């Protein structure tokens, strides 16, 4: 992205820029999450790669995704409260 020649952005342009940046960051975060889930869940669920994903493998992947996101949320909460505790010391 070019350097911003600031001062020349209208309010609406600024809004749009802010929205675009937020969106790009959200997309990057989602991509990271998907890449991790694919790796982790493949490792946990696909033991002997066959010619197709069978039913149990598909169910395992679905559960794995849900658990991975549960873990993500738990880590997020734990980290957040640790940061708070460190700040309050």
């Amino acid at each position, binding site marked *: 992205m070019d*350097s911003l020649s600031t001062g020349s952005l209208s309010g609406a342009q*600024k809004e749009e820029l802010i929205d675009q*940046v937020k969106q790009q960051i959200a997309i*990057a*975060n989602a991509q990271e999450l998907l890449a991790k889930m694919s790796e982790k869940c493949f490792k946990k669920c696909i033991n002997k790669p066959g010619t197709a994903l069978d039913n149990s493998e598909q169910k*395992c992947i679905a*559960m794995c995704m849900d658990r991975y996101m549960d873990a*993500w949320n738990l880590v997020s909460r734990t*980290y957040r409260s*640790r940061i708070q505790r460190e700040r309050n010391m």
Partner: protein
Amino acid sequence: MSDLSDFSMDKGGDSELQDFLIAEKQKAQFNAQIHEFNDFCWDKCVDKPGAKLDSRTETCISNCVERFIDVSLLITNRFAQMLEKGGGMQ
């Protein structure tokens, strides 16, 4: 992850945008840290994904985060001491 240092401000910098970008960068760093924790804590704590995370797994994951932070702090402090004593890397 998008590199927010691509946004450079010239001197007539717009402080609203600068504040926004600083805040977003912090949020992005926080998220990157979560991804990293989740990466190895998942490996250490989750055996086979079930219908929910059981309490043993949850305890393991939160301990994992806390202990990793303790390790980082310990290493940082000890390394600082080593540098003070004139040790560290030759």
